[in-house]
């Protein structure tokens, strides 16, 4: 469903050109649970931005469902993000002025869905992540684990093909991190959602069926010949 072929990304910083990604090849199949691990500065955030259609490669191809996204206009990329990708961030990135339910509604707002339908779906997804009791709470009334559950619900509400999680447990304590990872794995196992987790934490990476490492702008997959399904 997602294929990167020789993706390179460089930035000009003054007179110098810094190459952050130096030819990344990656193939993600439907239903994969994949981790990308690497130290900071390894290019993993840049890779995530490219996969998440927030950034474009300097060269190389990025194909989503067999379609090259290189030539798409900004509006088309927005629509693709809205339908195909669910983001989960380290610092949750919930909007503080909105309730849990309203936060979860956001992707559907930009899909132009009618309000009652939108709220019905958002409530159902919140229930499925165990947050049915907290739909009217604002983020500052929720614990870290609860915020990340709401963020996961927001990522899932549009029924995307790919859940893209950037350090999803990075701001959580050990117990809560385990809970959130359990939820992500359950969603992958029960619903067959493709999950791509970017992390620097080996224990998080260890819970993924496919594990890759990024270093110096290149991606390595130990034992790449192994079957990729969880």
């Amino acid at each position: 469903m997602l294929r990167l072929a020789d993706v390179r990304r460089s930035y000009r910083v003054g007179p110098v050109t810094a190459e952050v990604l130096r030819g990344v090849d990656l193939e993600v199949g439907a239903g994969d649970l994949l981790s990308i691990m690497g130290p900071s500065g390894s290019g993993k955030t840049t890779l995530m931005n490219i996969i998440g259609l927030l950034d474009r490669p300097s060269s190389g191809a990025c194909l989503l469902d067999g379609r090259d996204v290189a030539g798409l206009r900004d509006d088309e990329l927005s629509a693709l993000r809205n339908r195909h990708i669910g983001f989960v961030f380290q610092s949750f990135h919930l909007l503080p002025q909105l309730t849990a339910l309203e936060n979860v509604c956001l992707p559907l707002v930009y899909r132009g869905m009618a309000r009652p339908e939108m709220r019905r779906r958002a409530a159902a997804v919140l229930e499925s992540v165990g947050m049915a009791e907290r739909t009217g709470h604002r983020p500052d009334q929720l614990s870290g684990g609860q915020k990340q559950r709401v963020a996961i619900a927001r990522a899932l509400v549009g029924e995307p093909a790919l859940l893209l999680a950037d350090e999803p447990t990075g701001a959580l304590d050990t117990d809560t991190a385990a809970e959130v990872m359990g939820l992500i794995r359950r969603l992958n196992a029960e619903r067959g959602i493709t999950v791509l987790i970017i992390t620097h934490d080996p224990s998080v990476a260890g819970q993924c069926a496919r594990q890759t490492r990024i270093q110096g702008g290149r991606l390595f997959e130990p034992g790449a010949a192994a079957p990729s399904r969880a």
Partner: protein
Amino acid sequence: MSRTLSVLGANAREAAESLRRARLRTVLGLVGIMIGISSVIAMVSLGEIAREQARKQFEALGTDIVIVRKGQGGRVRAIALADAVQLAAAVPSITEAAPRISGRGQFEFAGRKVGRGAIQGVTRSFASVNRLSLQAGRFVSDLDTDRYYAVIGAEVADAMRGGRAVDSLLGGIVEVDEALFTVAGVLDRKQEGYALPVRVKADKSVFIPITTSQRIAPEPGVEVIVARSAAGVHYETAVRDIRSWFRKRAPGLSLDIVTAKQLIAQMESQMGIFTLLLGAVGSISLIVGGIGIMNIMLVSVAERRVEIAIRRALGARQRDIRSQFLIESVILTVTGGALGVLLGLAATWAICRFTDWEFLVSGLSVASGLGTAAAVGLFFGFQPAHQASRLDPIAGLQGK
């Protein structure tokens, strides 16, 4: 299309919510808009009220009215009474002419002082030209030449009768500056019109035959003639005819003639100056207010870069972000505008009380006030909204 509408709807709901939680900065930003809009409102509604007021007064008096006075200079010192009285009969473009000689004096009745006011020497046509009506008795008649009959204004009459019936005053003797007059009639109350440069002040006056007035007062001539031009006659024709008739009768007499039409034009040009002034105040404060709004929105965009990035990641298009901030700035200015409308109407009401004009709320002024506010919001909100839509979501998500 339906996507656009539901995104706009969601944006509007959120904008209203964020305004409800507004900070002091936002409230202060509204003050400029409020003052600007209130001047727009005051400008438009005062203009309309003044026009309406003038229209009513001229409707009551008639736009065919012509006022003749002695002008500055000239060899002849005054308009002769005989000429004034004959004017209507001699000039065909004039249907009625009411000359007046007026002075001030003290009124006494039954040994009591009942007030001071104008003593107006008039002819029969003065009542019809000025639309005066009677509650009892009759007005000055053409047969009253040199006789001591008086017609009493409503307020003077009230002071005289002290609770007794109006009819009881008829035939009574009123002393006007030591001359004794028999009361022949009592006038109805009459609201003073300000459209004409002639004050009638009927309620506080005593009207006597003009010939009698010339006998008791040292005034040599007629102070003013209030005339009406004939139906279908252009006012300039009437003015020319009056001048040429007086040239024959009193060569060297300089005349100052004003018509209702000229007065209307004069008043409109005065209103124009007034409107221009309020318009200038209004536009300056709207520009200042608009810049304030722009500043608020720029700060808001800078503070909400992370929010904008999150929305973009979740699928908001650039134009969704732009419309979100535009709607916010429009809601902001329209709220300020609504407060400005209230303030402007209050100011208009106060001015109306002060000037005795009739207050009315004009739909046009409210609509133009809110419309201007919305336009200011769109204009000054565009740059911040555009800036918000062009923010790089990657930088925003990293909190940079």
